[in-house]
């Protein structure tokens, strides 16, 4: 059942549930170990894996509480989101982060149960991996549980003039978009820094992060944008990620000027939480003109591509054809 107005109470309660439950459960579990744990407990490990920072159990409990409060604050913000997509993103991020931190804290502290001296425990890469897995699971549950609603699409300016198409004519507009210099530089730096860290700290599992970064970037290094009678398709060079917007689901077509950093906070497949394109998402590989499409389910999809005007004009022509209107 989807309503057309945001179910604020239901949304907020659902979003708050996971951070709240995770925090309470973690606190209960942690405090139940009080008699088993050394005092102080190891709470930080340095390069090489040896414990070098310690904390009292009470200190850890406070940490859990503060993290929980921040997670709940994010959940409350989710309850006030303008679009279902933003609500899901905030709820998932909040829940995932709280669960990750809680899991990591519990696992690293739990490893010290039964020990007299906390310095004996060394860091294991499995702690992080388990924490990440738990965090992802928490985020997934939040995203699925959060209720959705039929959002009204953001106001759109006047559309482009439809490309004049003869009744027997078939036209296809196709363009390739490559990552801009700025976006590529950011990722290259991240990969380089990760690799340097891997070598310096000799935590070889870090190279998995670098490999993941490279893979994700390669998949979106260039995309192909196609407008044809069936609608708009965007495909990454490895075939994924891909977006398909069938013409019968399109409610409006327009062109917008996009500033990647200012409007979407970065490069790649982005989601705008604030700013003039708030609530929109799409492939923003660099700044420039973009085709913006709104759909029947309230989504706003933005695709930055050169000569967006022609692509938009053709898409508008196909949209009008679909709705039975005549091209101007």
């Amino acid at each position: 059942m989807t309503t057309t107005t945001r179910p604020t109470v239901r949304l907020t309660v659902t979003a708050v549930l996971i951070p709240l439950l995770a925090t309470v459960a973690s606190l209960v579990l942690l405090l139940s170990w009080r008699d088993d744990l050394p005092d102080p407990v190891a709470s930080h490990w340095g390069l090489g894996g040896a414990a070098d920072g310690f904390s009292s159990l009470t200190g850890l409990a406070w940490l859990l509480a503060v993290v929980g409060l921040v997670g709940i604050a994010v959940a409350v913000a989710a309850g006030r989101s303008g679009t279902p997509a933003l609500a899901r993103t905030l709820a998932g991020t909040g829940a995932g982060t709280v669960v990750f931190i809680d899991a990591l804290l519990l696992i690293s502290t739990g490893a010290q149960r039964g020990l007299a001296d906390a310095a004996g425990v060394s860091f294991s890469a499995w702690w992080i991996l388990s924490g990440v897995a738990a965090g992802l699971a928490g985020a997934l549950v939040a995203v699925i549980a959060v209720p959705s609603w039929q959002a009204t699409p953001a106001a759109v300016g006047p559309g482009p003039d439809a490309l004049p198409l003869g009744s027997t004519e078939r036209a296809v507009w196709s363009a390739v978009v490559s990552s801009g210099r700025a976006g590529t530089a950011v990722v290259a730096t991240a990969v380089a820094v990760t690799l340097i860290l891997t070598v310096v700290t000799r935590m070889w599992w870090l190279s998995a992060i670098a490999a993941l970064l490279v893979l994700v970037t390669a998949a979106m290094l260039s995309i192909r944008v196609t407008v044809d009678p069936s609608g708009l398709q965007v495909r990454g060079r490895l075939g994924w990620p891909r977006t398909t917007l069938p013409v019968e689901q399109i409610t409006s077509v327009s062109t917008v000027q996009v500033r990647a950093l200012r409007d979407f906070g970065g490069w790649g497949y982005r989601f705008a939480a604030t700013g003039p394109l708030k609530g929109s998402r799409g492939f923003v590989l660099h700044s420039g003109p973009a085709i913006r499409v709104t759909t029947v389910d309230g989504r706003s999809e933005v695709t930055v591509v050169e000569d967006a005007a022609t692509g938009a004009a053709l898409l508008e022509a196909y949209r009008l054809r679909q709705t039975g209107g005549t091209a101007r």
Partner: protein
Amino acid sequence: MLIRLDPSLSLPLYEQLAASVRAGIASGEIEAGEKLPGARELAASLAVNVHTVLRGYNLLREEGLLDLRRGRGAVVTGQAPQSISAERARLATAVGAAQDAARRLGLTAEDLSVLIRKGYPS
């Protein structure tokens, strides 16, 4: 790039496709080194046989405008822009010659237009 086909025209579809690509190169819309859509995807989008697209691409390859490589697809060659510019220059020359010939025979620009339109594929 924009590719427009009209099955109602007498010009074969693969030639229209090739003409669309040449027009794109001429206008600068399609640059040297640019990759054209894959034959299968383009054929699906245009609702034509994949062989039609392949025939068009092959024609352009024979003219030295496209490089067809297995796995890489169709890529516009480095000399394609100059090739097309040269072709446009030849057209300009031919038009100039036609104008001279028409003037000698006392034809107006309108008369010449009618002559040109008569022979054009429709």
